[in-house]
């Protein structure tokens, strides 16, 4: 299950698309001090792109690889982003790997994409409080219900994006755009 050149180029292209989408959406909410909100606005797009990548490549470690490509580019903006993207990637990959015998592929893709976004929201808020001082840790813990709600919303919207991604992927397969 080694990655070949085609897999790498597609993963990199997905990471580039994720960056483009985050440049468009995140500045709209960057100043609003609600933990995890920045992840919520990108969740459907990230879910869609991840689902499409999984349909095309379907190899272990894909979430981590794409997160790495996305995060390294964002290193110039903040090294912290790379950290929480990698943790979310590993969590989603673990879910995708551990459920390979128990769940159908469609559910695994949707579940992993949703989990990816939920973990990103929680770890992102935690890293923001720990390393960037965006919010004192005490305040973050006091706003746990808000963070939990945002994480659930992220998971739901990420999962919905993945459903759309699967739909697009199936259409592309039918028209032989994707094999």
């Amino acid at each position, binding site marked *: 299950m080694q990655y070949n050149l085609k897999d790498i*180029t*597609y993963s*990199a*292209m997905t990471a580039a*698309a994720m960056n483009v989408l985050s440049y468009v959406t995140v500045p709209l909410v960057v100043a609003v001090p609600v933990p995890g909100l920045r992840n919520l606005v990108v969740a459907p797009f990230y879910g869609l792109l991840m689902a499409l990548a999984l349909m095309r490549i379907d190899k272990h470690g894909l979430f981590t690889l794409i997160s790495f490509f996305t995060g390294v580019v964002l290193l110039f903006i903040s090294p912290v982003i790379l950290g929480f993207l990698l943790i979310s990637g590993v969590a989603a990959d673990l879910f995708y790997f551990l459920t390979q015998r128990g769940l159908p592929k469609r559910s695994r893709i949707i579940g992993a994409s949703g989990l990816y976004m939920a973990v990103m929201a929680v770890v992102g808020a935690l890293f923001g409080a720990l390393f960037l001082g965006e919010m004192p840790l005490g305040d973050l813990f006091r706003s746990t219900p808000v963070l939990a709600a945002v994480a659930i919303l992220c998971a739901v919207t990420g999962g919905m994006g993945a459903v759309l991604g699967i739909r697009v992927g199936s259409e592309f397969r039918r028209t032989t755009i994707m094999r």
Partner: protein
Amino acid sequence: MQGSAFAGVAPFLRELHPIVKLITTILIFIYALATPSPTALLLYLFLLWGFLLLAGLGGQLRGPLPYVSAAAVIVFVVGWLFGGTFPMALAAAVRFFYLFFSFTLFVGSTSPNEFLRALHQARLPWMLRVGLLITMRFIPVLKEDMTKIIQSFSLRVDKGQRRLGLMYRGMLVPFLFRMMSLSDQIAMNLQMRGFGTKRQQTRYRDVSFGSYDLFFLLANLVVMGTIRWRF
């Protein structure tokens, strides 16, 4: 040699090792976060601005500066309205400029080829090197494609008719299709140039770490440390 896009950049910045530039941008980021005093933040920001102008990056700063300034004002106003103090909101807005300046320092003076060469010499696996290069190179390409797709959709469909389903068909599907076809073309081109094989690749020229790189790093640290200590 670096491409003509970097011809206007002064040699003292252009010839700096790409990894040293990367470390410098990270150091600038850490300085911006670790410095609560707006005076210290503004002082280093003006020094950095001057350095970028001297290095010939003024043209690259000029275009996006009004947008960055507008975003910084929003960050300041929202930060202040949501319970932050005036110095805290000001520091947050100034940090926004730091992001932009440090990004310009690296991206405006480093060609992707030079960066790839430096990573190759640092023995990063080929798949990560190639992946990173493609990601960085194709962000502006995809951004432009997306703008064109949105423009063509706006021309064809009236505002009143724009439903979610239609937007999905008219904007999202073409963008994803473009992404896929680009990816296939690049993979084929790279394969033809011998990428993806296990054989050791040669390099066009060495990118070496010299005494100037060390001097630049230390000088930058001394300036940061002095400002931080005095204010």
